[in-house]
């Protein structure tokens, strides 16, 4: 029904990231009394101390997983718009399972927690993939609808039945101490989950480019008719990219809980699903380009937040920044200039 796998050129990536930075710098004089000082903080902020550097890397790490989730989905020619619900679901799944087994040892507990996050995400996205495979239900719309109902349901659960009333936040109780991933760079939140994330990047790269299933997934994503002609069981590849994509989103939620949040707080993973789409596009849907893409995206976002903190406004530019990057990134500027040249 719709052509998938957004192709993008390096030029549009440069244009969209450049535009985001320029927008950010252009608004500084309006929101800050000391624009140059703010600009300096904005550009060097993440590297100014161990605390900021660690938190910046930690956030970028979680974004890498979200970006990988969308890479697999795009490579398989599927549009997973349900990342928001899948990350949030993965976070809650991990939290709830670990709250049930407070006496477990560290290693089995962490593995169980990660497993439940993976599974929750995989199921949430897999449902849309399955319906697409079985009854041709448009996965783009269905994954969004399902994810939104999941987000509101979790918001309700966290503020009501599952809420820890001793905390002042709308939050579940915290997971036991032994399940929390060791910190790599104190006093920041950077934790062992980051190392696992790098491993996952390598695994996804290997899966997509060095296994038969990965090859079939990519070929099906490029051209379903060709794949069918080549004898690939294409129906399977409606389901598989969605389930893997959901699992990776779920893993992001899971690692957030194990390493950073320790409890599902209302809205704690909001925005991660959408960021995953932007990052996958910046990375040109290539797994090994996801880490630099996530680092760049997190840097711009971090910069925007820094600029806001050092101003009188409490405006959230996050959504507008995301929108700008998304809007420009699949545009083909090269083609336009070429056409203009032809007319002349």
């Amino acid at each position: 029904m719709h052509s998938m796998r957004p192709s993008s050129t390096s030029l549009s990536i440069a244009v969209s990231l450049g535009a985001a930075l320029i927008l950010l710098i252009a608004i500084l004089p309006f929101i800050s009394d000391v624009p140059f000082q703010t600009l300096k903080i904005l550009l060097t902020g993440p590297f100014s101390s161990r605390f900021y550097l660690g938190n910046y890397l930690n956030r970028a790490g979680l974004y890498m997983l979200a970006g990988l989730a969308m890479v697999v989905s795009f490579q398989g020619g599927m549009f997973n718009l349900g990342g928001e619900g899948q990350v949030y679901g993965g976070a809650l799944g991990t939290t709830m399972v670990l709250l049930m087994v407070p006496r477990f040892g560290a290693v089995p507990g962490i593995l169980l927690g990660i497993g439940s996050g993976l599974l929750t995400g995989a199921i949430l996205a897999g449902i849309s993939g399955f319906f697409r495979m079985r009854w041709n239900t448009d996965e783009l719309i269905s994954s969004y609808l399902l994810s939104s109902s999941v987000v509101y349901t979790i918001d309700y659960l966290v503020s009501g039945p599952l809420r820890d009333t001793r905390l002042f936040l709308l939050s579940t109780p915290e997971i036991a101490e032994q399940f929390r991933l060791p910190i790599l760079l104190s006093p920041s939140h950077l934790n062992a989950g980051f190392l696992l994330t790098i491993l996952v990047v390598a695994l996804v790269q290997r899966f997509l480019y060095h296994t038969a299933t990965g090859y079939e997934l990519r070929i099906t994503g490029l051209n379903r008719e060709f794949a069918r002609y080549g004898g690939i069981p294409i129906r399977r590849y409606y389901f598989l990219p969605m389930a893997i994509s959901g699992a990776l989103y779920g893993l992001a939620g899971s690692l957030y809980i194990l390493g950073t949040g320790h409890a599902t707080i209302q809205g704690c993973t909001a925005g991660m699903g959408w960021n995953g789409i932007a990052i996958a596009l910046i990375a040109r849907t290539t797994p090994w380009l996801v880490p630099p893409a996530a680092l760049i995206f997190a840097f711009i976002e971090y910069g925007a937040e820094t600029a806001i903190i050092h101003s009188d406004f409490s405006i959230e530019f996050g959504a507008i920044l995301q929108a700008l990057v998304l809007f420009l990134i699949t545009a083909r500027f090269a083609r336009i200039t070429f056409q203009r040249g032809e007319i002349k």
Partner: protein
Amino acid sequence: MMTAIAGIMAPFLIAALGGLFTERAGVLNIALEGQMLIGAFAAAAVTGSSGSILGGLAAAVAVSGLTAYLYAALTLRLKANIFITGLAVNLFAAGAANVASQIFFHTKGVVRFDSFPALAKFSLPLLSRLPFIGQLFTQQSLFVYLSWLLVPLSAWLLYRTPFGLHVRAAGFNETALYARGISGQRVRELSVAISGVACGLAGAFLAFNLGAYVPNISSGRGWIALVAIFLGYKRPGGILLVSFLFAAAELVAQNAQGAANLPASLLLAFPFFITFVGMVLFSIISGTLSRIRK
């Protein structure tokens, strides 16, 4: 009960009828939600500050229509991926409304206005006497009657005018359109602009109904409208029927919530869930039917 249904369904119906044009022109417009949200904000902001309903309406239609047109024109001309940019419109609308709300009204939350004019409600003379469906024409605002009127109007536009023919041709057989010397891209841009105008109206109705702007005021109605287009077999009459069913389901949910004392936050999840279920059921049924016909 029927009176309430008419009010709930009006925004779905108006937005879905607008989205029908883009769908028939061959564009799946996932930005309906954002277009509606930004329209609602414009309507609330202008009417709340000036007291003029007409001014708010004009602002909503202009802002939402312009957003939609820019979105379509830029996307199609730069050959960008329309789902990615549609997503961008949705994110932008939420962000922009939030930022504008802080700049002009100094709040991120609900924007209330002291003197927000109420919509006049009136009954239609003959139709309101009809048994059962008469309530649909009793004590409704102009918007509700407008939403009814848009059903035949959009059918007429689509099936009885050259423009409607162009829209359908753009989605069905663009080469034929090209042979007649008409740009399919231009038709698509216009049809997305039409959806923007419709979403502006729908958003304005939401704002006028509440007499305020609430963050996330559209709360998924644009997506529901999008699904209603599919479930209504991409026809105005079908869309009318599906919108009615969605509105009835939502009313039942609201009443159930009151009766069972469920929290309001859970109610936010319901429209998405019921739309998801409706969409899946529809694809199962239509899949089975086409297999039987073979």
